[in-house]
Structures are given as C-alpha cells and as structure tokens.
C-alpha cells in the first residue's frame, strides 16, 4: 500500500479538535489521549506551550506568514507555514535525521494553537519578516 497513513490521521485528529473547540470551549479527554498516542512525547510539551499562549502567527502585508514559538527555555523558535520545519534542535534530530517524529513540539503547538484559537497575531512589514528568516540562517551558518 503506497502513500502514508500517519499524516492523514494527524490531520483528521487536529480537525476534530478544532471542531470540538468551536462548539464548546473544552476539549474532551478523548482528544488528549489520541494526541498522546499519535505524537508521543511531544504531546504534553506542546499542550503546555498552548496553555501558555506561546505561539505567535507573524503576517506580512504580502500574506507571507510564519510562526514564532516561545520555547520553555525562553528561546524563540521559528516554524514555517508552507512546510513542516522548525529551527529547534529537536526537529533537526528527531524529524530530519532520525525520522522518529512527525513534528517537534513547537510545530504541534502551532497546529493546536490554530485549532483552539490560541494563536497570538503579529503584523510586521515585509522587511521585518525577511529579517526573522535571515537571522535563523545566520545562527545556523
């Protein structure tokens, strides 16, 4: 059987969470345990990031967006919106290198924040958005 299963499952799960949050403000424990099953050790840290409203959606006038997540250590990580990418070391290791996880806790926090309406919004200029992206490059370089 070709094609992957897990992303479709994860997407459906997040959609259900979003629907549940729109209808009542509380997610049930069912979602929590499913999240844990699919995302494993990232689930609790991701929910913690959501509880603390650590996710900000950064938008430029052209419509380009990215996400910034304030990690527990106080560091700010950038997550792309067009593909799954995060600047945290866990992403580089678990997702890119070992393919052990679908997402890192920051990207999961981004999705959960979207689903639960817990994203903070920040409008910036094109230049500022570019600077955020370039800074990441410099750090890694």
């Amino acid at each position, binding site marked *: *059987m070709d094609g*992957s*299963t*897990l*992303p*479709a*499952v*994860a*997407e*459906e*799960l*997040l*959609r259900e969470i*979003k629907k549940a*949050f*729109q*209808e*009542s*403000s509380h*997610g049930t*424990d069912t979602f*929590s*345990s*499913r*999240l*844990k*099953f*699919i995302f*494993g050790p990232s*689930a*609790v840290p991701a*929910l*913690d990031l*959501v*509880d*603390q*409203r650590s996710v900000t959606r*950064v*938008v430029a*006038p052209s419509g380009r967006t990215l996400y910034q997540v304030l990690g527990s250590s106080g560091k700010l990580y950038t997550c792309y*919106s*067009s*593909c*799954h*990418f995060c600047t945290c070391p866990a992403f580089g290791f678990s997702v890119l290198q070992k*393919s*052990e996880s*679908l997402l890192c806790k920051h990207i999961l926090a981004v*999705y959960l924040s979207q*689903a*639960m*309406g*817990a994203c*903070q*919004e*920040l*409008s*910036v*200029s094109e230049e*500022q958005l570019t600077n955020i992206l370039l800074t990441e490059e410099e750090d890694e370089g």
Partner: protein
Amino acid sequence: LCRGGLAERLCRLQNRERSAISFWRHQCISDDKTPSDKSGVLIVKILEIFEECTIQVAICQQLEQSPVTLSPEDAVINAQKPILKVLFARETAAHLKSRPQDVIHIYPPWQKLLLRNADAPVIMNTYFSQKVLLSEHSEAREKTYGLTKMLIRKNIISLAQTFRLDDLDDKLHQEPSDNQVPCAPQIHNNSDSKQHPLALSAVNDSLLDMVESQGAVGWREVQVQVVIQRVYCLPAREGCRSHTQGNKPLLSNGGMFCRLCLLVQDAYGMFSEVQLQPLSSTDDIEQYCRRWEGKSCCLAGMKILQRTTRGRALGLFSLIDSLWPPVVPLKVPGQSQDSEMMTTNLPPPSFCYILTVQSGEIHVEVDEEEQISNLYQPPAVHGLKEILRIDACNERCSFWAQVLYRRLQTKHNVPIDQRDILLFVTDSTLQNVVHGIPKVVAVSVTASCVLSMEIREALGAGSQLVFFKDALWGNGRIICVERTVLLLQKPLLCLAAGADLSKLTGPVRLDELDSTTQANSICALRGTVVGVNESTAFSWPTCDRCGNGKLELCPQDRELLYCNQCSEAVTTPVLKMQLEVFLSCPSRSQSTVKVKVWHEINLALFVLLTMLLFLQTYEVQSVLGKEVGLLNCYVHSVTSHPNCVALEEIVLL
C-alpha cells in the same frame, strides 16, 4: 505546567493509562490466558506491516467481532472481511513482535478514526493488545522468529505535507481578517450605547466566566462588567506599525510603540490586564487616567492573550499587590448575594489573564458619567520621607515631588527616547527635616516606563512638580518601570495619607558633601581651592541662539564663526569654559575633592578663575586659597583608594 491547563490534564491521564496498561500486561502474563471479558474486543489478522515515525502501521483484516458491539452495518461488512489500518505505539509493537499472518486481539478502550478520503478506518490507542497463538507449532515458531529481526519497511514522511485544518465549512465560522484597523475607544455618553451595533447579551460580572466561555458559541457577545483600577501605557512590540491611526505618528518609546492598557477588577476580586489599541503621540494618557480610573466598564469579545502567574510577571503582580486587599467585600462565586461574603484573609491573586481586543470592533465601554466605583482603590500618595522608610522590596508607591535635576544615561548607541533617565527630586517632607534623612532622592526612569511628549519636555524645562503614580520602591531606590505613570496634573482623588502636596517654600537645599555621599547623587559643597588641573582647562565658543557647541569657521569670512544648526553666522558667541579644580572641603576633609566646573562667561559665579582663563594669562598662585561658595554638584564617582570624589558642577532646574 500550568495548573488546570491542558498539558497537566494530559499528564494525569497519561499516568493513569500507563499504570492501567502495565497492570493489564502483567495480568496477561501471569494468568497465561486471555482475559475472559470478550466484549468490545477487536480481532484482526495482520496482512502487512510498515513503520511511520516509530508508529507501526498494520494493514489488517478484521476477523470477527464480539456480538455486543455488532451493529447492522457491521454485520454486512463482516462478510467481506473488512480491511483496517491498525496503529501500534512503539512500546506495544515491541511487546507484540508481530509478523504478517499473526492474529491480534485488541482490547478496549481502543479508538476508531474515519479519514476523509474514505480509506480504511484507522484503529488507534491500541495499548491493550495481545497476540493470539493458534497452535503449539506456532509457539515454537514464535521462539525462533524472536531471534531473527524482521525488516519492516519504513515510510519517510514528506515535510511538504502540511496539515490543513480549514475546509469549506470552516470558512463560515472564520474570524474576521486581522487587517482591519482597530477603532479607538469612543467616549460614549449614555444615549450612544443604545445604538450599539453588537447584539450583546446580559451583562456578566465574572471575568473567569468570560475566560472559560472562550471559543464557545456566542462567546463574543458575552459582556463583563469590571472596574478600571489603573490606566497606563505599555511598550508594545514593533509589529504594531501596520496599525496606523490616520497619519498621526504613533507615540513611540524609541522604536517600541505603546498600547493603552487597563488593569481591571471584577466583583469577585479577579484582576485582568486589558491591552487596547496603540496610542498616538497626541493622545493624552493623563486624560484617559482622569476620565477612566475608578469607573465601571463593560468588556465584550475579548481575546485571551495570556494567562500569566506571579512568578512570570513580577511587575504586574507588584501592582496587583498594591491593590490588595480590596476595600469592599467581594462576591463569592456560587452564592447568592445575601450570604456572607468573604473578604478577610483572602490571599492575593496568583494568576491573571491578559486580554486584548479583537480588531475592528469596539469592545470597551466606559461609563464616564457614572460615579466612581466603591471597588476602586486610588493610589496611596505618601511623602517621600515615608516612602524612604518603607521596609519592603518591590512595593508600588505614589508620590508628588519637585524635579530638581535631570541626567540622561550616556549610552550613545541607544536612541534618546530609549535611554534611562535619572531624576533628582524632593518634596517638603524631605526639605523640612534637619538631619537624618537625605534632602534629595534619586528616581531612575527606565526605558520601559512610557513618558508622553509633554512630560519629556517638562522634565527638561523649569522646575516641575510631577506626580509619580505606581513607581517601584526597593533596595533603597525608587524606579519608574512598566505601569508607572508620570503626570503633571495633581491627582483628583488620592489617599493623601501623610502626604504634603504643598509647594516648596524657600530655596531648595541639597545635602552637603560628606563622608556618606555616594556616586550618582547630587550635593552641595563649599571649600577652598588647593590646586588646579591645568591639563583639563579649555574653552570653546557656542552659538548664542541655539547653544550649539560645534561652531565652524564661516566660509565667506574666515574670521567669523558659523553655526550650521541656525545656518547663520555667529557674531556674539557665548564662551564656555571647563576646568577641574581641587578643593579642600571641611565637610569631607579626608578626601581629595575634584570638581569639574564649567561656565558660560555670562554667569560669573567663579569670577576670578573665568577671567584668568579667558585672558589665557592665569597664574595658578593667585587662584589658590580662594574660597568657593555653595556649589551644586553631581557626584561622578567616589573612590576609597585613592580617597577621591569627582564631581561636576550643575545647575538645578
């Protein structure tokens, strides 16, 4: 983890599940037979296995289902032996060591998920799974297989495959675009509020209720009535630049824009900080303070920005602590108003919600005509003498003082309006005391304390009486930080407990230089000239119109001076002189006192010396022994080895 947050709930659930799983597995092993309860058990036969990100995906055929869970649809499908995709977590997979053709029993509580593209249903949360051994022969086979590692195909998931949480249905419920310009809160009178476009429901009086109803149907229409305890500005992040208010320049704090904020309290005592729109430089924070503090207001359609706790927001909580305990009895949730209300011994709040407005809608209605609420606690104004005696750290304090001298931080890579300012202030409670306490107090204004243009100009101009609202006192210093407001007008309502708001009579006196004088303070001194540091003497001409010290030679006439700030020649320059002298001061006789004096030739305070310098024919001998009268100075540094005090002469405002 946030108490009561989603993460904590999941943690607890996880712990319960984990102990249930290990107990179940232990039971299976020890009993050496499958548990008798067959209801809800899913029986599957594995056809194919592959792995995706440590989750094992098994394409299975459903064999049979126990009669309890059989439904009419299932009965039909069953005949065709339906295909299922069963997911196993890494630990379960390791425990099972499944192979194709194995039969697995999956015990409840497993969960089924149907995917949109009508693929095979997905079975998850399969923690309670067990392999069924069909015959003795297979048991032996099991043992040998256990030794050889089976290779399972691993699917690599593409990073380009993102999750889309929206679909056509969702677009109907989507929130309005954030590109809309937020409206400034209008100052309503009572008649306007009747024409309000928002269909608002009955007014609630609990902030916690409003917060908990977030995301629920109709949450935008929920109104909460609260009391505005404080109004202030907070420096916001740069991103607000896109919200322009017409073409008015926004009130900036050196690259950071400022938002109008309210600290509100509901009838149950809970606080919340509400962040409103950015202020323009012409907006007057004083007006908002005067018109809004103490009044009731209705909040609607707030968005939760953050739930913060004492440990994370010390500044906010020091302000909340200054408003605790409340001055009127608080309501107790869940009880009718007739029952006794608790007010005594309530601990101060440990958490606070930070709310913000949704763009494009008016959400804050302040009833300005109404009286001041009973719950309002105006700032307690004290005399500086009392404040210096407070034996606590990080206490918010308010006082009314005269600014004597202002000094800007000298970091040149920081823009002027982002630099810290050091103010030296006094009031009658300090001036009228003979000895024991200092006559002047230093107040440090950090860049995070938002100052309006008016205040900034006033601080540099003549001697001003300034009201410092909610400054921080701690470690022997007063600092103005976020949420401190500096106002020029006398507060209308304040608890003047021991405060003396009278103007200072007579000239201001500074403390005299003595053994307790510290660096970065101001003092007065008198002494005798004992030496002159000739190498520091120099003079330079300045423009008499604008004070520019960098004059150039006129291109047309090389004998005239030219000021490029005024774009004119300077015919009568003001000569400024600077010199360091060593004094012997009886009040601090052990130290070498070095004073940098500078003068404009028009102010002949130190007449003999200035004349000598100007003529460039001074004789040090004739200066030595001259008495220097009471000089106001700023102390640059105080060192013990060598015992030296370096000062600079200043002019008080």
